[in-house]
């Protein structure tokens, strides 16, 4: 307790780069600059209630939910495979799985563009087989694909780490008491892995709902998500006040979803990230 000063750099860091910007965002979101100076208003929040913006919000949540569901469906079996009993094979698999993450996120997404383009690799291959070209890029599917591809590790790794911690003898005990492989999974492995599933869901849903790069690159102009909206307000339109208001709304949504998740998680006593 004597060495309180050790925490000062972190406290300063947090004040400078987290607290102050948050206050600024909040300040921008409830003010408007007029000739008479700065006045407080809620009109930016009211503006967000217009259907055109609400539909952007719903599309963002909808696509993020689909992405999260897909990540769960793909990621859970993946985590179970990684958790296989052969240690040597497990390490190779984990390495293969993590290698793409060493590459920059943007590069990976650009790579998908070249694959999905009208003259891209996949269409060229289809043409060779005599099929017509397909519109693979610039639709919801492409955006979801990009999200799943980029965020899948955030689902797999927490589930894997929880599965890895499950005591083997608990599984053997279930077998011993008459449970076949499916029942063991349903009654023991899955319930015990829930903390991992929950932190996986949180870690995929949050970046998915706020992404703007994936939707811009793979979704083209027409598939605006809430992240793109915020980006536009700040960088293109220059309406910092409205952008800040949307950011605040986004933050509240994320905080709420995290709160729900962590409340659910507490019943299963941690092991996850939150």
């Amino acid at each position, binding site marked *: 307790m004597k060495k309180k000063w050790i925490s000062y750099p972190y406290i300063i860091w947090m004040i400078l780069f987290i607290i102050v910007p948050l206050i600024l965002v909040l300040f921008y979101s409830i003010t408007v600059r007029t000739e008479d100076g700065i006045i407080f208003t809620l009109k930016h929040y009211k503006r967000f209630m217009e259907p055109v913006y609400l539909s952007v919000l719903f599309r963002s949540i909808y696509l993020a939910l689909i992405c999260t569901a897909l990540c769960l469906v793909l990621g859970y079996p993946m985590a179970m495979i990684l958790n296989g009993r052969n240690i040597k094979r497990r390490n190779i698999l984990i390495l293969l799985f993590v290698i793409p993450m060493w590459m920059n996120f943007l590069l990976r997404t650009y790579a998908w563009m070249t694959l999905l383009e009208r003259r891209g690799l996949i269409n060229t291959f289809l043409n060779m087989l005599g099929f017509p070209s397909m519109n693979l890029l610039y639709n919801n599917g492409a955006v979801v694909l990009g999200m799943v591809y980029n965020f899948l590790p955030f689902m797999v790794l927490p589930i894997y780490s929880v599965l890895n911690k499950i*005591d083997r*003898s*608990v599984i053997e*005990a279930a*077998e*011993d*008491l*008459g*449970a*076949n492989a499916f029942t063991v999974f349903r009654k023991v492995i899955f319930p015990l892995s829930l903390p991992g599933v929950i932190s996986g869901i949180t870690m995929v849903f949050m970046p998915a709902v706020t992404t703007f790069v994936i939707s811009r690159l793979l979704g083209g102009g027409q598939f605006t998500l809430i992240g793109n909206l915020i980006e536009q307000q700040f960088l293109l339109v220059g309406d910092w006040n409205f952008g800040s208001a949307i950011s605040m709304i986004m933050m509240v949504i994320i905080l709420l979803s995290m709160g729900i998740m962590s409340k659910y998680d507490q019943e299963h006593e941690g092991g996850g990230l939150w």
Partner: protein
Amino acid sequence: MNNETKEILIELVNVSKTYDSTDALKAINLYIRRNEFLTLLGPSGCGKTTTLRLIGGFEEPDSGEILFAGKKINGVPPYKRRVNTVFQKYALFPHMNVFENIAFGLKIKKVEPKVIKEKVERILSLVNLAGYESRAVNSLSGGQQQRIAIARALVNEPEVLLLDEPLGALDLKMRQEMQIELKNMQQRLGITFVYVTHDQEEALTMSDTIVVMRDGAIQQIGTPIDIYNEPKNAFVADFIGESNIISGVMLRDYLVQFADSNFECVDRGFGENEPVDVVIRPEDIKIVSAEDSVLQGEVKSAIFKGVHYEMIVQSNGFHWKIQSTALAPPGRKIGLKIEPNDIHIMRKAPAA
């Protein structure tokens, strides 16, 4: 014992098991009779847990056969075997309460909920935990968790209960209580127990039959009294209770020479002048005055152990361990007296 009349329930025939090129079991043969309390006893790495896991179905033998009531059960998965296991660290389901843990096996067998409730209640009172149904397993003490683990296995009314060092994590007092409780339960329920431990006292207290193992091989099978009084070789003698083991020569029947003296003994059938191991329990050596004995020595140390004193006595270069309720203080010259009955002669183990 009347074991001979009882039917054989489990039989291991020439069972071998190898892990990464080390032999965990070397072609062992073993019978387990119905309603018997059989203990697999040995130091860690002797293959006792492997034997248990083979019977439970968690491991498959590399060669040999495992028979259950006369039928071969190699390759039968654990959930199809009529045995239940109590695991070393209890292995309770942490996400379930006490009731759900115990009811697990019954629910899988689709027993009616009403019957499940009755059975769980009955088994909980058997393990002295009535009323604990809705408690979280993590809120229980080690001893209580152990009882739940036993209840969870017993509620399925298995023909055989396998116990893998179930009392290892408990403190001494709790362990001794549980030993008596387990033995009572086994007698009351008439279930075959196969018990794994490295604690010789535990084995002697509870078992009908003890199987002493070492390096994947069985050293001796017998009742606790046989094993204690008639250990087959120096390893068993040393592992079961404390022993003085000294090299000697069997001069002829009923006469053995060790510590430069000749002693009468009760063993015969050895070759003339055959080198042997002589085993003498520390409590079998009497302290007499130096003049009254062929074997004299000087007390090197004496430790109070509660019931008795344990003294180390040096005589002709050999250190005897002696247990006696009478104290001979260090430095005193004493005589050692050993009755012929208490001298156990064993053949030298073939060089392993």
